[in-house]
């Protein structure tokens, strides 16, 4: 063979690209601001961290000034590191360290107010539990959109799951039957999306919006119909699963080993969906169909059939997430009780870059900030409650703009596929 088209080995640049410098400046400035905050307001204050469930009396009192000072300097150092230039590979490390320091410092600051105690176990356990609807909703979104179908109807699937879960649990008397019912209901409602998106090539965003409307109308209507009769909408409680001695480990125990079924299923599903997507034939085909359906088609993959069943299967996940609202919280169904969280799940999916592990991270950010906001509000923070409630949204905005940057959707996401002229 005479010649080859091999491009030269990559020359790795040793200088920091411009965006590193920009990010570095931001981190450095924020870090120094924190230092200034420490000197101005935090002298003499202390932040109390308590282990409320396993060690009722144990608590640490940390001088807020010192903690914020150290963390602020750490953040500034991360920024400086970026500014002087660091290898590409370590940019992620530096920015993660910077953000972590920033978040921790803000927490120390927030919990330095008189009367506030950072109850590590209940806050973390609560945060994990609160992330669950986002995990299920966003995973459902991932499965749909990885196969090229936009699912904006997660909110509707939540409602269907929430309603049906309670209904079936009431009729059968079994909470597990209720969970299955919720999944089936979620899946039935995505079936319409699946059909319209594959067979009838309807604009998928419109279908999603319609599904939300239909689910709201349907569940509200059924709620009214069943309200008159007894025994259709009584609350059922999912038992807390306690892992024996593991549950007694400080912090880790209450957070990880004494949670409701939803938490375990949620974490397992993240792993399962990840494995299925990246390690199995189904996943390979699913991703191909979402990126380049014509390519998959030309290799004999039936694009629309795969999309159809994936969307239907994704409904199972969203429906299960819907059951979180009722069965997971030991609540009866109530009209519109999902309160827009389905849309947040959509955002979590994008924050997680259509990847189950990213979804886990995004959902945890949301759950954690929501929990912190509620805790601070309950403790009587001087920040108005509305601003505390904005916290998860504001944090997401910052994370998305500052850390995630351009999230690239699967290339064929939302584009109906028409194989030849069949």
């Amino acid at each position, binding site marked *: 063979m005479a010649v080859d088209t091999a491009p030269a080995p990559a020359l790795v640049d040793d200088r920091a690209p411009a965006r590193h410098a920009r990010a570095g400046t931001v981190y450095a400035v924020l870090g120094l601001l924190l230092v200034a905050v420490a000197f101005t307001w935090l002298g003499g204050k202390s932040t109390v961290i308590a282990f409320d469930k396993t060690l009722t009396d144990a608590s640490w009192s940390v001088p807020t000034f010192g903690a914020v000072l150290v963390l602020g300097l750490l953040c500034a150092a991360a920024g400086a590191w970026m500014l002087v230039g660091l290898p590409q590979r370590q940019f992620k490390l530096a920015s993660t360290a910077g953000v972590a320091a920033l978040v921790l410092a803000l927490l120390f600051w927030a919990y330095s107010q008189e009367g506030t105690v950072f109850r590590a176990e209940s806050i973390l356990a609560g945060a994990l539990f609160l992330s669950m609807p986002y995990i299920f909703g966003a995973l459902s979104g991932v499965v749909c959109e990885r196969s090229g179908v936009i699912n904006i109807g997660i909110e509707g699937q939540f409602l269907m799951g929430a309603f049906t879960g309670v209904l079936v649990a009431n009729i059968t008397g079994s909470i597990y039957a209720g969970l299955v019912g919720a999944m089936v209901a979620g899946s039935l409602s995505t079936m319409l999306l699946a059909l319209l998106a594959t067979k009838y090539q309807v*604009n998928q*965003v419109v279908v999603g919006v319609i599904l939300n409307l239909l689910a709201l109308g349907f569940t509200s209507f059924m709620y009214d119909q069943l309200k008159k009769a007894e025994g259709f909408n009584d609350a059922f409680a999912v038992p807390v699963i306690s892992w024996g001695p593991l549950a007694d480990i400080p912090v880790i125990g209450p957070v990880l080993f004494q949670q409701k079924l939803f938490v375990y299923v949620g974490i397992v599903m993240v792993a399962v969906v990840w494995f299925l997507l990246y390690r199995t034939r189904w996943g390979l085909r699913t991703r191909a169909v979402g990126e380049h359906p014509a390519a998959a088609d030309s290799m004999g993959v039936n694009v629309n059939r795969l999309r159809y069943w994936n969307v239907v299967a994704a409904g199972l996940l969203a429906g299960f997430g819907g059951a979180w609202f009722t069965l997971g919280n030991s609540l009866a169904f109530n009209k519109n009780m999902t309160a827009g969280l389905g849309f947040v799940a959509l955002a979590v999916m994008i924050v997680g870059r259509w990847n189950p592990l990213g979804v886990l991270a995004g959902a945890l950010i949301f759950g954690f900030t929501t929990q912190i906001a509620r805790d601070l509000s309950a403790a009587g923070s001087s920040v108005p409650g509305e601003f505390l409630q904005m916290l998860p949204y504001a944090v997401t*905005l910052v994370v998305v703009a500052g850390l995630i940057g351009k999230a690239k*959707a699967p290339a064929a996401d939302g584009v109906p596929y028409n194989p030849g002229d069949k």
Partner: protein
Amino acid sequence: MSDSTTTEAPAEPPAPAEESESKPSFMRVFGGYLTEANSVMVTVYSLLLAFLIGAILLIVSDEYTRSTFSYFFARPQDALAASWYLVRDSYTALFEGAILNLNTLESYQAGQADFGNLLRPLSETLTYATPLIFTGLAVGLAFRAGLFNIGAQGQLIFGMMGALIVGFSLDLPIWLHLPLAIIAGGLAGGALGAVPGVLKAATGAHEVISSIMLNNIAALFLVWALGTSFLHSETKSDLVSKPVDESAMLPTLLSSFNPSLRVNLALIIGFAAAVFTWWLLSKSTFGFRIRAVGFNEHAAATAGMRIGSTYTTTMTAAGALAGLGGAALALGVSSGGITTNTALDYGFSGITVALLGRANPGGIVASALLFGALKAGALSAQPDVPVDISTLLQATIVLFIAAPALVKAILHLRTPRGGLVTLEAKGW
């Protein structure tokens, strides 16, 4: 955003042309038109199908009618009569609430009611359509630039606040005050709309995430702001704002017929905004750029268009449109003071309105009117027609209109020359 350059299939192969040598009669042409899935007939059939499904829902949901079905085989006429009356009365009620009240018409003909009463249903329809025109345009305009503005809700809320603040805090003559208040609404909405645009241009942050976050932030901000002494009503303890000054209120259009006819100048502004948006998109160089970027940002960039600034300006303009919708509320029907509920879900409905109108200003106005009529009808027909049934009816109508292929398949219509008109399919 993705385009489908790789899929080479067209939407639907046109049916083989029916060749007939003799000149077809009018009835044949007309009959052919009726059985063809053209956009007019698809809309007509969508409504019919939706109302058919609605009828079934009504029958199922009505306890009495349902009970007559329990002895259907013994005395079917009971069930049929009950169903017929139920469906007829329900739809009459919707029609009367949205378009023309037949009772009022009778009284009017008998000289017992004034003309204004006759106009009330229409006025209500137009009143509810007004904010939807604005939010529909806000979503539609962004859509043409390839942006999914799911944030019209928050932009509308900001617009409401902006218009409100100028509306009560300045003391000016009407010719100055009203325009200023309206502009303030547009500016406030535009400011919020700019955020996702700027973030996308600068950092690549996905506009859907930032818009969803900003919707929530705006709604909470409104709750907080309404509680502050600056915005909070001085006379009422409820969570309601100060009313806007008389000089900043949008004049009503039909109140000379009857003072309770609420439709106001905002409707005209809405039409004007639609015309302007149409002009902007199809005539102006800016619109050329928006569409080019929306279809293919790479080619647009290669042709020298600035992508980031197109995102920013388009989102700002879209936000401003939604903000004007907020101003229409704050200075119009809610001029007595806004609450946390005033915005309803006008912003979210704007998405459906825009997509149903195929992101064309004309189509957006038409679908906003349809939604306004459904809302006015539903409001007036309750509780005979449960509100939830109206929601379901709305969803079903939109579903069929958005899915011509489905209507075609159900009714076995023929494909028209030039194929089915489908909503453009767009990814993120």
